[in-house]
Structures are given as structure tokens and as C-alpha cells.
């Protein structure tokens, strides 16, 4: 019987059926649910590693030891793990090794939309690109076989719309027997990549990729679907769905393996159709290779290829959808101009936006309120706390990739920037790549002040465990990293841990440290307000009639603080009110209120019995 699975769940299921026993990953949208799903199957080991490189090295080690293994990450994670990727490409493996890169065309939750199919070509390894959940499942089973048959890691490239689309999947009830444990290989020519060995391996991997190109000719995931011969479309991954939707009558060569390509199959297909086009999301990855084969692609009359963007017809940026594909095809005279245009109503564009904001009760809020007041340059990082950029806090000045904040602050400081730099970084990000950067601050002595915002969880990606939480992905108790001790061990002497809700202490500590020139680290600690244990403490606060609408509490940017319809009689300003359904009772607003008009938690119960406040 078919069941509904997301692409992520389907890949996890397929891997389990393939007898995989080890998975390691680092969370990142849209990949996160793969390892989370896999962790719940019987007879498997699954973990969150501190970063993608460690995760990949772990999966490589398991594969060297003869087990089938996979490693998951979002697309930018493969940049972090690239060194390990190229190493494994050189050595090959014993047990099947699959590396999942979940790309994010359209940047729904990412800082770029790099096309990681390019990594396959770069590292000379095969790349599979499933088009839906069924294929994510079926290709998973095939991927481990390819890995073992050709002695190569396999890049499993997925995209947001495949990862996060649910569709019916036929699964196998039986799991393949996991591979037997072997004696760890003692094979230096293959596994010790010193130059003399590596030179020989390079020749081997170039031969391997040739053989894989031969394999691609007969690979069942590469399919020709002949319909009308007027138009032929070469496509792969999610773009296949748009090809079928927009050009129902066209012939299609659907590539399940997008690297290396089956040259003969493509040539035969090209000969059978009048016009040949390539439909793919992001880079002209297939398109460029087809042109290199000397195969002619259809060119609309006035479209010159404008190097270095060699993509024709379809856009090189952003996520595709049927509407964009249709519009591009119309412009290229592949389809007649549409009779029925989308009913874009102009008015819809002026509506108030609903951007993500720090939750009510978020432990990051108080720190950003203080940082906003200090007005110093703030080198941020990636996590919930990046939302410190949103008005009215406006307290992030740089943010590009995970772990960069401390290094960027250090660089600016040693370049002689006149202002003191403050780096802010989350706990998970600190473990990910912040530690070496902070070591550099201590070792090479700059005056950077680092704030580690320890909300006891990897928040942004949906609350995953990390080395600071004392629990593993499979819910085992474990040693908890003591961040303060770790920071001291790195050579930082000025270290202080404070409660993240204690706005006053945060402000005083920073102001005191600004008088010295030493590097310093402030750890602001408090559970993310959405964690189940934190939810149990939620308790809405209330505004009393002492409020005169001074607006100070609006400046902390809490969604639970509203402007009420009531005006202050003297100043004619709207009074503050608190939405009791949203407020968690973090007391940040109560601390900043200059008139003590917001009651603290311990003031609420006794007074609540005699109704005094205006709410």
C-alpha cells in the first residue's frame, strides 16, 4: 500500500531499507527531517554532529569500516564539508556512502542558492537528483549500490520542493540485511592520500567517472518518454514536474542521474526531436554539458548566449514554478502567448508584510535591546538571533555564513577600526565553527567582545540537540559542554555567564568591559521560549494604569506588546497593552518600563485577586 511521505522521509526510509546503519548530519533547512526520521528506525545509529565536516568524516569512517552510511546537510553545509568530500572522492569506500545535499532554490531559508550539482563534477563523483518522494526512496536504494559498485561516494542532491513535498510512495516492507562488520582496511595506497598515493588515485577516479558515464547510458533512472517529436526536453529533478505540467505533449529525456551524463542517450534523443531544449533550475549545469557534447539546442531568434551566463530560455536565478516556465517558454516562442493571465491584483502588493520576528519571550531579545542602545558595530551570525536585525532592534551589521561573526569582528579590529566590535553567536553556531575563531581572538589578541547567546538548543532549524544540551539525537543522556569552561580553556580570561533575561546586568557588564581593551566573552543563558520546559513557565504579564504611552516597551520589538486603542489623557498617546495569548512573561518589557507600569510575575498573583490593573 502506498503511504504519504515527504521527500526527506522517503530518502530516510529508502536508506533504512538499503540496510544503512549509520547516519550523521548537521541540521539545516530543507535537510533536517532526513536524519530525524532515520533516527527513529530500529537497528540504526544516527547523530547530530557539531558541523557538516565532522558529520561527513563520521559517515566516511563508517563506510571505510564496511557499513552503509549517509550524511545530511543543507547546500551551504557542503561548503563546510567540501574538504572531506574531495578526500572521500579520492579514496573511495568499502560500504556504500551517500552524501545528501539539500539545495534551496529561491532561498526560502538560506543565504544563497548555490547549485550543488556542480560539486559532483568538481569532485568527480556521480550525482542523483530525484523528482519526487517515490524517486527519493527508490534512488536511495540504488545509490548505495552505485557507491559500492564504483567505489565512490554518491552525491544525492535534493531541493526544497522535493524535500518538503509529500506524495504517495510505494515502500518495501523488508529491510536488506546490513553489511557484515569487517576488519578495518589496512590499505595505505587507497586510504592514505600522501602525494605518491594520491597521484595514482587521481588516475583511478578519472577512469571511474568514465565508467560511470557508461553506466548512465543504461541506468533506469534516466528515461526517455517519447510523445510529440516537435519538442524534446532534457530535464532532471524537480524541473521534470514543471516540464510535464507545462508541456504535456512534449517528449522528455528525464535524467535521474545528472552527473555524469549519458552522451549516447542524449544524442539519440536529440536526433529524434525537432527542437531540443534543456529545462533545469538554477545553473545551466546540464545545458552547458550538452553543448560541450556538440549537440545543438533550440535558440529563440533573438536570444544570444551571453557569456558568462550561458543559460538560455529559463532564468538562472530563483526557484522555478509552472508560471515562470510557461512565461519563459512564451518569450522563446515555444508556446503561444497565454490567453488567460494570472489575475495579479495590484492591491495585494501593498498589504502589511508578515516577516518572521523573534518570538514573544525570546531570550535573545534583551541583549539586542542593549546592543541597539550601545550602537556599536555588531558582527552577527546565522540562527534565530539573526532576527536581531529586524526593526525596532536593528542590531546586526554583518551576517554571511555560519561561524563568521567572530572572525569578521577580529579582522575589523586588527585592521584598526576605531569602534569596538561585538560578535554575537548562538550556542549551536559556536560549536559549529565559532570555537576556532574565538581561539584566534585569544591567541592573536584582538579586543573583540563576543556574546554567546546560549538558548540551550539549535533553535532556528526547529530545536535540535547539540553538544551543549546534554542529550543526543536518539535521546540518550550525554556529557554537556560547559561553554564557560571551554571559553576559558581557549585563553579568554574575561568571561561571564548571565541570565539572558537580566537586561540590567547585560548592559552593566558590557559597559564595564568597553572601558578595557581585553577580549571578553559574555554568555547569555536561557532556554528558548518555545521549548516544552519553558512553555510550562509561560505566564502573561499585564499593563497597569500607570502606563502613559511613553513607547519605551515598544522598542524591544515584542509581538505580544500592542498599541491599545486607549489614549493617555495627558499626552494623547496610545497606551501599551499585552496580548495574554502571546505573552510568556519573560519580564523584559517590565524591566525596561521607566514607570513600573508592567507588573512582574511575582506581582501578578497577589494583585490579581483584587482587580487593580486595567486589563
Amino acid at each position, binding site marked *: 500500500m502506498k*503511504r*504519504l511521505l515527504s521527500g526527506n522521509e522517503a530518502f530516510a526510509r529508502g536508506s533504512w531499507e538499503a540496510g544503512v546503519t549509520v547516519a550523521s548530519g548537521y541540521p539545516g*533547512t*530543507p535537510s*533536517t*527531517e532526513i536524519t530525524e526520521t532515520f533516527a527513529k528506525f530500529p537497528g540504526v545509529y544516527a547523530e547530530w554532529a557539531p558541523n557538516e565536516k565532522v558529520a561527513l568524516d563520521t559517515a566516511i569512517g563508517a563506510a571505510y569500516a564496511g557499513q552503509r552510511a549517509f550524511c545530511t546537510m543543507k547546500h551551504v553545509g557542503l561548503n563546510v564539508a567540501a574538504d572531506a568530500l574531495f578526500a572521500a572522492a579520492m579514496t573511495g569506500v568499502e560500504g556504500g556512502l551517500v552524501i545528501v545535499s539539500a539545495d534551496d532554490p529561491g532561498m*526560502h*531559508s538560506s543565504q544563497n542558492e548555490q547549485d550543488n550539482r556542480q560539486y559532483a563534477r568538481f569532485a568527480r563523483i556521480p550525482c542523483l537528483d530525484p523528482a*519526487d518522494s517515490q524517486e527519493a526512496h527508490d534512488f536511495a536504494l540504488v545509490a548505495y549500490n552505485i557507491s559500492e559498485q564504483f567505489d565512490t561516494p554518491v552525491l544525492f542532491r535534493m531541493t*526544497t*520542493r522535493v524535500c*518538503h*513535498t*509529500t*506524495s*504517495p510512495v510505494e515502500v518495501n516492507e523488508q529491510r536488506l540485511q546490513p553489511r557484515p562488520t569487517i576488519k578495518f582496511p589496512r590499505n595505505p595506497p587507497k586510504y592514505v592520500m600522501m602525494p605518491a598515493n594520491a597521484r595514482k588515485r587521481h588516475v583511478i577516479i578519472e577512469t571511474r567517472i568514465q565508467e560511470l558515464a557508461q553506466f548512465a547510458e543504461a541506468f533506469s533512472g534516466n528515461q526517455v518518454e517519447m510523445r510529440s517529436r516537435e519538442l524534446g526536453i532534457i530535464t532532471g529533478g*524537480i524541473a521534470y*514536474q*514543471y516540464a*510535464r*505540467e507545462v508541456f504535456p505533449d512534449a517528449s522528455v529525456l528525464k535524467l535521474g542521474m545528472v552527473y555524469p551524463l549519458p552522451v549516447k542517450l542524449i544524442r539519440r534523443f536529440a536526433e529524434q526531436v525537432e527542437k531540443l531544449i534543456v529545462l533545469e533550475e538554477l545553473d545551466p549545469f546540464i545545458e552547458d554539458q550538452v553543448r560541450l557534447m556538440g549537440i545543438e539546442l533550440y535558440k529563440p531568434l533573438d536570444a544570444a548566449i551571453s557569456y558568462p551566463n550561458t543559460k538560455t530560455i529559463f532564468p538562472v536565478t530563483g526557484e522555478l*514554478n*509552472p*508560471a515562470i516556465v*510557461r512565461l519563459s517558454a512564451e518569450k522563446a516562442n515555444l508556446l503561444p502567448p497565454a490567453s*488567460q*493571465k*494570472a*489575475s*495579479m*491584483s495590484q*492591491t*495585494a502588493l501593498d*498589504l*502589511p*508584510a*508578515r*516577516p*518572521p*520576528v*523573534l*518570538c*514573544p519571550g525570546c531570550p535573545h531579545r534583551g541583549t539586542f535591546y542593549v546592543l541597539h542602545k550601545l550602537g556599536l558595530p555588531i558582527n552577527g551570525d546565522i540562527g*534565530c538571533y539573526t*532576527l536581531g536585525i*529586524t*526593526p525596532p532592534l536593528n542590531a546586526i551589521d554583518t551576517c554571511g555564513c555560519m561561524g563568521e561573526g567572530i572572525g569578521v569582528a577580529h579582522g575589523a579590529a586588527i585592521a584598526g577600526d576605531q569602534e569596538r566590535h561585538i560578535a554575537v553567536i548562538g550556542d549551536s553556531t559556536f560549536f559549529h565553527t565559532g570555537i576556532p575563531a574565538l581561539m584566534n581572538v585569544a591567541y592573536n589578541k584582538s579586543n573583540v567582545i563576543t556574546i554567546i547567546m546560549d538558548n540551550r538548543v539549535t533553535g*532556528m*532549524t*526547529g*530545536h535540535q540537540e547539540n553538544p551543549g544540551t546534554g542529550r543526543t539525537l536518539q535521546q540518550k543522556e550525554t556529557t554537556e559542554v560547559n561553554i564557560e569552561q571551554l571559553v576559558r580553556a581557549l585563553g579568554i580570561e574575561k568571561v561571564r555567564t548571565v541570565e539572558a533575561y537580566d537586561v540590567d546586568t547585560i548592559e552593566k557588564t558590557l559597559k564595564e568591559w568597553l572601558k578595557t581593551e581585553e577580549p571578553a566573552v559574555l554568555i547569555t543563558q536561557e532556554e528558548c521560549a*518555545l521549548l516544552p520546559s519553558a512553555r510550562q513557565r509561560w505566564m502573561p504579564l499585564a499593563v497597569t494604569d500607570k502606563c502613559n504611552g511613553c513607547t519605551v516597551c*515598544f522598542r524591544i*520589538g515584542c*509581538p505580544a*506588546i*500592542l*498599541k491599545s486603542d486607549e489614549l493617555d489623557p495627558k499626552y494623547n498617546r*496610545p497606551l501599551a497593552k499585552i496580548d495574554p495569548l*502571546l505573552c510568556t512573561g519573560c519580564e523584559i518589557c517590565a524591566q525596561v518600563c521607566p514607570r513600573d507600569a508592567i507588573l512582574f510575575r511575582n506581582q501578578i498573583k497577589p494583585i490579581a485577586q483584587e482587580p487593580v490593573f486595567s486589563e
Partner: protein
Amino acid sequence: MMNFPLINPLKQPVNILLVGVGGQGTILASNILAELGLRLGLDVKQAEIHGMSQRGGSVVSHLRWGEKVFSPIIPPGEADILLAFEKLEAARFSDHLRPGGIALINDHSINPMTVSAGLVEYPDHAQIQGILNHVTGHIYWINGLKIAEELGNTRTANVVLLGALSSLMTIDPTDWATVIQARLSAKVIEINLKAFQTGRQALRN
């Protein structure tokens, strides 16, 4: 009150765009619709964007039923039904509705930060109605939250809306009940089935 024939998913492909605000149960409703499609023997695709764990952002789920469904995304102008859990989001995604499609809207507003901070104004009911009128005359309002409150559990508002949605389609109510039961924990099944029934009657009155 309904001046169009009931939608029969066995005879025509159906595209439903569900929109709401984080925490309203939009995705759960979409999951139920996906299971329902599978139960009816249809091909199904359900697509949404995860990742921003913060509360308060817009939530969109694309749900498609058909003999064979290709694209997971419903392009602008091609949704047969816009099921909105919040008014502003209904207006925001009105361009996804096909001309003459059905808008079924929870008569409930949640202020975004920009509004609660007093930077911009929340559009009034007439403005929202006007934006939707641009696209279709088939606009149905239902006060899901109020109905759910009267039933004694505000968290069933999403199922009230599913009940209302069911009254626009030919699908047998027992099929709905089966998938709703399968998706919820035993404790809350009874109240949710009641919410479904109440919602199912709501548009008829």
C-alpha cells in the same frame, strides 16, 4: 447559498491553497486533506516551506489532488479553492485563486509586528473583501474561532474550517471522519468530529 455545483475531486483535478499564520494548524489541515486524497485513490502532492521555527510568520501549504499530479506548487491564478485561516493572508494570496474560484475565509485577524508596532494599518474588512472581489464572487466567511470557542476548544478552529470546506465538495462525510480520526490523538477526536460537523453546517445557514 452556494450558487455553483459541488466540487467532485474524482471528476476534476483540485488545487487548494491553504494560508494562515504560524500556530493556527494550517499544516495539520493540509495533512488531513492529503490523506483524504490518498483515501479517495487520487494522486496527491502537498508542499510547504518549513524551517522558520518562529511563531508569527505567514504559512502557505499547496495541496493538489488529481489523477496524476506533477508540479507540487500551485501557480498564481490556478487555485480552485483558497482556504484562509486569517484575513490578511487571504488578501495576500488572492492572486493565487483562479478567476471565479472559491475563497473560504476564517473571519479572524492576527496583527503582524508591523501593525502592532503601529507602523502600518491592518486593512479593514471592506478592503479585504474588495481585493478578493477582484478575483471571484465566491467568497465565504466563517467565524471558525468563535465556533471553536463555543464548542469549548479554540484549537479546533482549523477543523471547523475543514468542515465548511467539506460542504463545498461531493466527498462522503465518513471519508472525512476517517482521515480526521487517523490524524489526531484519541483524547481530542470527539471534539474535533463535532467541530467538523458544526463547520459543515455553517455555510448552509
